């Protein structure tokens, strides 16, 4: 099954308030309405977040102390740009590495105090300091490649799932068609936000027809007789004879 066949899919009516049956190419398939809508929403939201539209920064009411090991502190320094881009704003005391206070802290083996001033707000959900630590860890693991923080992905996934059309929602045929139409435009149209399938093919109609033709060929011993009717050979003699017998 591929994306192209989905392009020309014919949408049937909703089944059991859960699935949308489609005929794509020669295949009958059902689409999970929830998974499909979740995928559509996920890509919408992702686009929004990446473009910065749904990304805000929330300043905390009270500054929060970040407890980081020394290595975390260094990471914070080296990846300051990425972190700030996503909206975590830290107030690092002893920003200047040469400052006396920092050296003193080092000397006393005391963890450096970092105050978290603001956190990212993705689609209305505030991320936390723990999410920051996690992001730092990911940056460290990958030499600072610019992927989306895992916490943001989590928010995206759960938001996509929450707002999507649910199982058991009754849909009109036009609404079903709309969902399938949107699904065609998603880039990963066959899986939902959590990696589960959106579409399950049921049967290839072409092979089904062939199979039925084959089985009926085997079982059909009534030589085409259907309720006592079948096509007889067409010839003049027969027509003549039939007319004769009818006349007398």
């Amino acid at each position, binding site marked *: *099954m*591929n994306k192209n066949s989905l392009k*020309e899919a*014919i949408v*049937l009516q909703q*089944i*059991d308030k*859960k699935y949308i*049956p489609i*005929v794509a190419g*020669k295949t*009958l398939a*059902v689409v*999970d309405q*929830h998974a499909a809508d*979740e995928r559509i929403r996920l890509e919408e939201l992702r686009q929004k977040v990446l473009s910065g539209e749904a990304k805000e920064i929330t300043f905390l009411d009270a500054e929060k102390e970040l407890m980081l090991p020394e290595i975390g502190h260094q990471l914070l320094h080296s990846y300051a740009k990425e972190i700030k881009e996503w909206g975590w704003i830290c107030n690092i005391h002893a920003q200047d590495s040469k400052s006396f206070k920092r050296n003193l802290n080092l000397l006393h083996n005391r963890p450096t105090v970092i105050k978290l001033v603001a956190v990212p707000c993705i689609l209305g959900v505030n991320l936390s300091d723990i999410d920051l630590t996690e992001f730092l860890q990911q940056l460290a*693991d*990958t*030499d*600072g*490649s610019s*992927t*989306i923080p*895992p916490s943001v992905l989590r928010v995206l996934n759960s938001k996509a799932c929450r707002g999507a059309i649910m199982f*058991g929602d009754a849909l009109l045929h036009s609404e079903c068609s709309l969902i399938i139409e949107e699904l065609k435009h998603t*880039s*990963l149209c*066959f*899986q*939902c936000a*959590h*990696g589960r399938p959106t*579409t*399950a*093919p*049921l*049967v*290839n*109609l072409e092979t*089904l027809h062939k*199979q*039925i*033709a084959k*089985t*009926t060929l085997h*079982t059909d011993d009534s030589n085409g007789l*259907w*309720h006592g*009717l079948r*096509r*007889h050979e067409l*010839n*003049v003699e*027969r*027509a*003549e004879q*039939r*007319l004769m*017998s*009818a006349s007398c």
Partner: protein
Amino acid sequence: MADAMEVDLQEERVFKDPPNIRRLDETVVNRIAAGEVIQRPVSAVKELVENSLDAHSSSVNVVVKDGGLKLIQVTDDGHGIRYEDLPILCERHTTSKLSTFEDLQSIKSMGFRGEALASMTYVGHVTVTTITKGQLHGYRVSYKDGVMEHEPKACAAVKGTQIMVENLFYNMSARRKTLQNSADDYSKIVDLLSRFAIHHTSVSFSCRKHGAARADVHSVGTRSRVDAIRSVYGVSIAQNLMKIEASDNDLSSSVFKMDGLISNFNFVAKKITMVLFINDRLVEWTALKRALEIVYSATLPKASKPFIYMSIVLPPEHVDVNVHPTKREVSLLNQEVIIEKIQSLVESKLRNSNDTRTFQEQTIEPSSSGQVCSLKDSDINPSPSGSKPPKVPVHKMVRTDSSDPAGRLHAYMQTKSHSHLDGISSLTSVRSSIRQRRNPKETADLTSIQELIDDIDGNSHSSLLDIVRHCTYVGMADDVFALLQHDTHLYLANVVNLSKELMYQQVLRRFAHFNAIELSNPASLKELTMLALKEENLNPECAVNDDLNEKIAEMSTALLKQKREMLEEYFCIHIDIDGNLTRLPVVLDQYTPDMDRVPDFVLCLGNDVDWENEKTCFQAIAAALGNFYAMHPPMLPNPTGDGLKFYEKKRPSENNEDIETPSGDNAIMTTEIDNGLLSEAETAWAQREWSIQHILFPAIKLFLKPPASMANNGTFVRVASLEKLYKIFERC
């Protein structure tokens, strides 16, 4: 007491003299170094195989005993070792691959330190058998602690070099013991060889346990990497790979070329497999691995443990190969940039490569088309979501239908060109047909008809009856299959078969009580028969047959004319005195048959119906009517999808309109779409679908007694159950 001891220790630390610094004995140095280079048996195998590859071998065979502790034997067909070099072969820091330190910047060979073989001799017994090109015989020599144990002995040899390492770590008891307890050294060696095998596709590798007949890795030199992966890692990986390529030639950021194969999202594994070669060197790069893992889990949560093969080529001067004792890691210029580039490439590849998804073919057990309903089905409660339509009392059902003005007009529209109804069915006639339905006995005043009806009732398949009574129509899956839901199952039902049967049964039930459809243009039976005959034998020698056909048509018309009274009385098929068909029965209210099928029906009456026996005669006429009234796909091909081609290429000539078929021989070829015909076809198909949904299925629910034969002739096919679908989709 404890305090006192602490003080003691401190005092000791403070007051003790610093220890003397001594120069270590050379054998100690060598053994320490050896322990570092040869960490496990697998590192020895890696060094030896890399030597073989450096010697331009085309085949490398590895035999291992006891996870490599007893024996490691690597045999290649490379260029061999010179006799003169044998004395210093296993000394430390002797190599053929490097002469000055600057060479290291442009090193192409895998070895360069001249330590591997030497290290092995310090921790194991090494025996080398080698022959170089053009020599008559080879030499064999054993080494210990870097030097030959005896003069090289002449011996028979095949091309290349064979190195045996026996009793590895015999002099390092701690390591030997830990390794003896761990069982996975052999699998590590197999894994190593597998990795080499898929990168060096032109070299054939094999790896086996000592004494085993079967090799655990066996690759023959192939040109395709995917083939190599298939033979080493298996089909399931090989068929789920995507090619990926990248290059960058920007001196300011990074210069590299990468090509590789990565698994798609059909691939599911327990853990990530990453085979990475940088400048042909098998290395680990945790940061890249982790970065790709993150991409996978973010994009394809289900396939988050990928299989990745990558070969990255950089200018040698950008790679520092000498950063790890076993050369497991290298350091690169601009690592971050390269990671980022590869990562984003993989991500976009994953996002866009999703257009094909292979699904495991669902197996429809052949019996499922037969036993559409097993007994347990009746135990299952109907799904609570109320998929079942409420049972509508018979009379109300009819009223609902006829109060749907849009639908009614629709149903009549199609007949306009051919016929018009004998007055729109008034409530009176509807009432009479409903009354008739209430008392079916009233109809059957002939025993033969009664018998036929009893046959139908007696032959009815109970579970199929349950399906048709309570099914919900979902839609047309293709030209003949309608998708139905019944309880928790989905069925495909053959509309043609169903409607045929329904019409047949309706004819018998309404026997002699039909309302009439008046044809606007009475059609000559003879002409109709001629048309049908023409279509029947489509062979090109039609001209010869024309006379015969005409004779047949004449006689068959005469025959039907004789039967006209009976046809009129019982079946409402009115034939006027000139042999024209003027009236047809209403078999199903609101439904007029496809007039394109009249010729075939007339031929059927004339040629196939047996008029002698009352019962078989009625039955055959009913069957002929059933076949005629059934909801066949319209003659014009379905304009959606492939059918559209028909309207682009062929334009049938006007006079042929009634019987044209896709193979109509009078067709004039034009390339543009015939819009008139196309819209005609579109209406025909739309009307048919409308009739199926709004006329056929309501009627089937009420009247059809499905015969047992429908259970196994492909009329009903169960395609899925909702419980199973639920499992397929799981839940979020």
